């Protein structure tokens, strides 16, 4: 799959594992799809252009990626927009409308609050101003025209979940963190894990970069 992946790049050692017999063909295909998705020049299909712009700025503050992916980032906003066209996991807060509508209302609501409080669109605020507004939302005190402060707080939980799911399931991120969950067995031989326990690794297991913890 090394020939076809789009940025962010996957570490060569990890790519070799993705091409090895320790992963099933079906799982490899899923990882490939995640790596092949082109985030560049994505045009929103489910959110309005305004809401999408807010989402791009918001996702950058909610889950900054540079400490894991210094070269190129995953376009979280693009993948969330694409996700909003799927049935999702079947769950939602009873107090919120369906996901696509909730995102649209929350994001445009945040933009209006930014205009109202700081006199500028959310995407044009300074990072400090953006964080201040996010803090108000996280604390359950940001009411917007369509969603009240409690609804916004619940929606913010949904947004955080969407961001981390897209991020940690990307092969480039799993490579950086040394996560080997997808290498739990191939189609021919289903290896599983032989060595496990604290401080125990198998020879082939990816080390992951030395990240300060």
């Amino acid at each position, binding site marked *: 799959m090394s020939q076809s992946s789009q940025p962010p790049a996957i570490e060569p050692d990890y790519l070799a594992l993705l091409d090895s017999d320790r992963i099933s063909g079906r799982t490899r295909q899923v990882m490939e799809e995640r790596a092949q998705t082109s985030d560049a020049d994505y045009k929103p299909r489910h959110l309005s252009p305004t809401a999408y712009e807010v989402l791009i700025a918001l996702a950058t503050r909610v*889950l900054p990626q540079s*400490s894991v992916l210094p070269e190129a980032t995953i376009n979280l906003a693009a993948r969330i927009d694409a996700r909003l066209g799927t049935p999702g996991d079947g769950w939602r807060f009873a107090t919120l409308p369906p996901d696509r509508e909730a995102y649209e209302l929350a994001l445009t609501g945040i933009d209006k609050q930014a205009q109202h409080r700081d006199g500028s669109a959310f995407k044009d605020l300074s990072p400090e101003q953006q964080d201040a507004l996010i803090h108000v939302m996280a604390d359950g005190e940001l009411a917007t025209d369509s969603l009240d402060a409690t609804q916004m707080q619940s929606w913010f939980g949904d947004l955080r979940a969407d961001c981390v799911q897209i991020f*940690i399931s990307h092969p480039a991120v799993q490579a950086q963190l040394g996560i080997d*969950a997808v290498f739990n067995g191939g189609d021919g031989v289903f290896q599983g894990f032989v060595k496990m326990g*604290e401080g125990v690794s198998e020879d082939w297991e990816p080390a992951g970069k030395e990240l300060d913890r």
Partner: protein
Amino acid sequence: MPRLDPRDLRLHSETGKGVDWPFDFETLRPYVERVEREIGVSGPENYPWDPERRYAYPPPQRNGAANAMIRGCDALGIRNADGPTALITRDWGDRKACVGCGACHQGCRNGAKSGTDVTYLPLAVSAGAEIRPNCFVHGIERDSSGRVTAVVYQENGQDRKQRCAALVLAAGAVETARLLLHTGLANRSGQVGRNYMAHISTQVWGRFDEIIRPNKGYPSLTLTEDMMRPKDADFVGGYLIQSLGMMPLTWATGVARGRGLWGEALTRYLRGYNYMAGIGAHGDCLPYEGNLVTLSDEIGRAGVPKPKINFSYGQNEQAMHEHMARTMTAIWEAAGAKDIWSMDRAAHMIGTCRMGTDPDDSVVDPVGRSHDIDNLWISDHSIFPSATAANPALAIMALSSAPQRQSRRDNSRGALRPAPAGLGEPL
């Protein structure tokens, strides 16, 4: 796959809270043991809380979280053991021994996990059953005497009808109630959808100095039943504690929702995945007036209104959650974990069609048959009168044997085929 605690079936007699089951554990025990034998369950040689209990397979290998929990519990004098686990550790027919791949919650690839896909469903098919996937039942037809004659279901957008001599619903505490509320059947008691419960399933996570890789091995092997009736409890009922491993996506979702992190703090925490281990509880839950499943005003698949779940903790659940968080934090501190935090969560959907002897106060009788319609049965966790602390899977399967027993005694109604002979003894 822990068993029900006999005390949990008599919670009302013991405490005046909740409701008793309409039979005691000894009545259910033969069915529990039969299920364990038929599906294959592994467990320790000596189970500290039930010395006479035996399991057919030895436990799987311990992972990082399992070892950490043993260390923490031992330091605090809390008894612990490898828990009973619905997987096989030796090959058995077409099924292979567990290889510790860690994907139990996602799906087992070699038949080691004793799920219905490798146990009762193949048995049913071999006995003549036909499985029709991706079908959605939205109607139930009855004759002039009120007995069920057919179900109406949607497949690829087309309505189809299947005539039946008897109907067994097994769609779970939300969907079984949803279908009955939608059709208006079996609800003379007004109890359908009521008494919705969940397990109080608090988790505690911590970071360890040594690499853990929480995706490896059977996720929740080490177990203690010492908190089933803790001496210092300020709540009724009790809970089990198990070690916890987790796949990255599930774990990250819990972090994002449960710990409330965002910004650089969130990224920094996610980076430590390989060094995290968890410990989690499942505890009993009382029924409350306001906790229920109803039909929402939004139309869902096949025109059936979407279900709406109302659920929140009462005082008992809040007190139990706090006790769990305190106890598991102490275990994790004793195990050497750092940056420890607890996540408030509930798991497993229970109740909504409870069984009982009084038709005014329950939906089905003690063997799972509707009080109102004599060829309608419910065979899932919606019939549990109380939540109990054990994972519901074993009790669901054990209770599912009861209708079969009844139908053999009751041939005049010709309701169901006789019970299948079973899967036989493990090799």
